[in-house]
């Protein structure tokens, strides 16, 4: 039963990502992306990581994507840009990227196939308490460093995003 859910979620995630990659309309692409993230959240849940699943929904599908929505709104993506996007994504442009990606996928697949992944125990549920304990003890320095990363992120976004006087 769990396997069934997993394969459904995985196929939803992959197909919606494919749709995202080829969509000419930014808003449609975004909706597909959110769908893909939600499907991945389901996979997280099935892998016994409910905390990560919740964060995936709240932060990725929620906060980050809302930022994209705002920017798309600010840039006024209309029918004209969809038309332009169609012109940009002709057939010819896909050969190199698809080739490279397939090559990479094949390599990763070989590695997984030959690797010694023969676990017997089922995916143990690793709850938020456990994650929190490890996060704030063994990885405390990394948490501090993450805070150091976020502060310049805020400042940088503020500085770059503000409208300057000389701008049109």
């Amino acid at each position: 039963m769990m396997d069934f859910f997993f394969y459904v979620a995985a196929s939803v995630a992959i197909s919606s990502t494919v749709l995202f990659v080829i969509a000419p309309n930014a808003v449609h692409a975004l909706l597909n992306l959110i769908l893909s993230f939600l499907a991945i959240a389901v996979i997280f849940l099935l892998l016994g990581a409910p905390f990560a699943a919740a964060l995936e929904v709240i932060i990725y599908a929620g906060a980050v994507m809302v930022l994209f929505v705002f920017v798309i709104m600010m840039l006024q993506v209309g029918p004209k840009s969809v038309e332009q996007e169609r012109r940009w994504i002709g057939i010819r442009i896909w050969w190199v990227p698809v080739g490279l990606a397939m090559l990479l996928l094949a390599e990763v697949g070989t590695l997984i196939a030959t690797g010694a992944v023969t676990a017997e125990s089922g995916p143990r549920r690793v709850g938020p308490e456990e994650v929190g304990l490890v996060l704030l003890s063994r990885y405390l320095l990394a948490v501090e460093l993450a805070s150091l990363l976020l502060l310049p992120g805020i400042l940088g976004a503020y500085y770059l995003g503000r409208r300057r006087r000389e701008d049109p």
Partner: protein
Amino acid sequence: MLDWFWIIPALPLAGFLVLTLGPSLSRATVSGMTLATSTLAAMLSASIAVALLQQGFHPVGYSRSLWTWIDLDGFTTRIALYIDALSMTMVLIITGVGLLVQLYATEYMSEDDEYQRFFAYMNLFVGSMLVLVLADNLLLLFLGWEGVGLCSYLLIGFWYRDLLNGRAARKAFIVNRIGDAAMLVGLCLLFTELGTLEIQAILRNATLQWTIGDPLVVTATVLLLGGAIGKSAQVPLHVWLPDAMAGPTPVSALIHSATMVTAGVYLIARTHTLFALAPVTQTAIVVIGTTTMLFAASSALVQRDIKRVFAYSTISQLGYMFIALGVGATGAAIFHLFTHACFKALLFLLAGALMFSLHHEKDLMNMGGLRRDLPLLFWAAVIGAASLSGLPFITAGFFSKDQILLQAWISPNGGRWLLTAGLIGSVLTALYSFRVVFLAFFGEKHREVSKSPGWRMTLPMGILAVLSLGIGWLGWSPRAEEPSWFIRLMDTAMPVHQPDPITEAQAGMVAVLASSAALLGVAGAYLMYMQRPASLEAVVKTEAVQAIRQFLFRGWAFNWLYRLTIQKPFRLFAQAAKHDLVERAYDRLLVRPFLSTAGSAKGDIVDQAYERLLMRPFQWVADINQDDVLDRLYRGLTRLVEQAAVTARRLQTGQVRWYATVLAAGAVGLAGLAVLA
């Protein structure tokens, strides 16, 4: 009383917060508030100094932990302050000179539009500097270190509307960062090796863990020295200080002569135990100090801008302090730091007062004959210059420099050559300082005085002049065998390892030599800049002397050297990567010379002869041989080069997608390696 010493740095920092975050205040409020906090801080530090003296400075000093800053598994740092004789001296200098300079600045900056911003920065500077000298651990010290660096940047570029000031500020910031990066690595090394950043614990553990000359301690001290030479403007990281004079003059007086630039000296004195374990580093310090001292003194001799004279003079005097540190005489170094803070602040305030009175005139050649119009400034200049050159017995500079020369001579690290170098520096110092006095105050008058400085400017100069004469006696001892009061005080904080015996004869001889060097310099200055005998003028006019002069004027051409060795290659590389090297090389080496010769030699007789005799037959041969194998070979070669150029140019296109593709190809390659392995 002692429990309250943490308030000293808190006062200026609070002033900074109010001035920055608070509303826009009137000039009177700003200056009133700044002076109130500075006076309070100075009075508090004076009374704490008295309390500490009564208590007799127990050897470990006095520390107080305020709160925990970072608390991680295996890494804990507290905000803790530590006070002993060394940091007390620094605190007295900072709060004392700080108060005087701020009083001076209330008048000097009174016309400026951004009065509040100026005093906000000044307060932040004083606060950070106090944190630096009072810090109990090296991380907090580094915080103060970067804080004063930031303030220095902000204040050099205070008049940012002029592009040159901004450039000078950037230069100071970047050059300092080079040293600071080394220092940060040094701190990491000390932490990983000794497991703590608390200064006293480091000094204790180092003596237990390391023997003399251990490679690790040498590396650590060299890295710390890197930070110190950046901040204290020693060769080769001194290039920022002369340009830093772009800032307002009170800033030059407080930051770029009396306090911040001495932070490097303080750092080495603070960690002197480490340096004592690394004789190699100590020798390096002596060499750096001597080179800097002589180079800067000779450069100061020919500068026209009065502030640049004093800037080079500061670099040179810091060189003296480094010599003292290198020979292990930390007490003498701090004593010279102390007297130097007084007389150099006096001289900078004097330079500011001259500029104030003469419509921002900085060029010494345009001054002259000011003795009658500005008698107070004249006496300030004489006292300052006398103390800087170390005229015997009446000035403070004499006592501190005498100490350094004596130690340089008797120390195993120094010797006769070091004493000689120090004496030469002494002559040069007297020469350039009295050159300023003679050029500015004697001779013909070039400019009229527009306004005289008021009491808020003259009072600080008066106090500093008294100090420049008076405090020398603190470092004087009636008998050569026993150290003076000040040195003994310093020894409570920095115990001397092997006190070298000094005989009466040695001390007397150095005193005589130092006095005569100073007097010789003054006499030389009188001869060269007052009397100006014709024979001397003739020598000066010769080309060789002028060339040396130009070389000295540009500070031994260090800027030029850096531009040539660092900036130019970097730019060339960037250019080459942009346009592709092969193409350009062909263009330069083959096409252009050919085109230019062809262009210049067109149509003369030789040309015609050549055409008849060589070109036509050749052309004829070429015509019948067109498109043969050789021809094709060459054409193929050019096409190959062209193709290579086009391909190489693709690497640097500015196209994000192209970069991403290359990145992905690299990932595929790496993963492929993993698969095959």
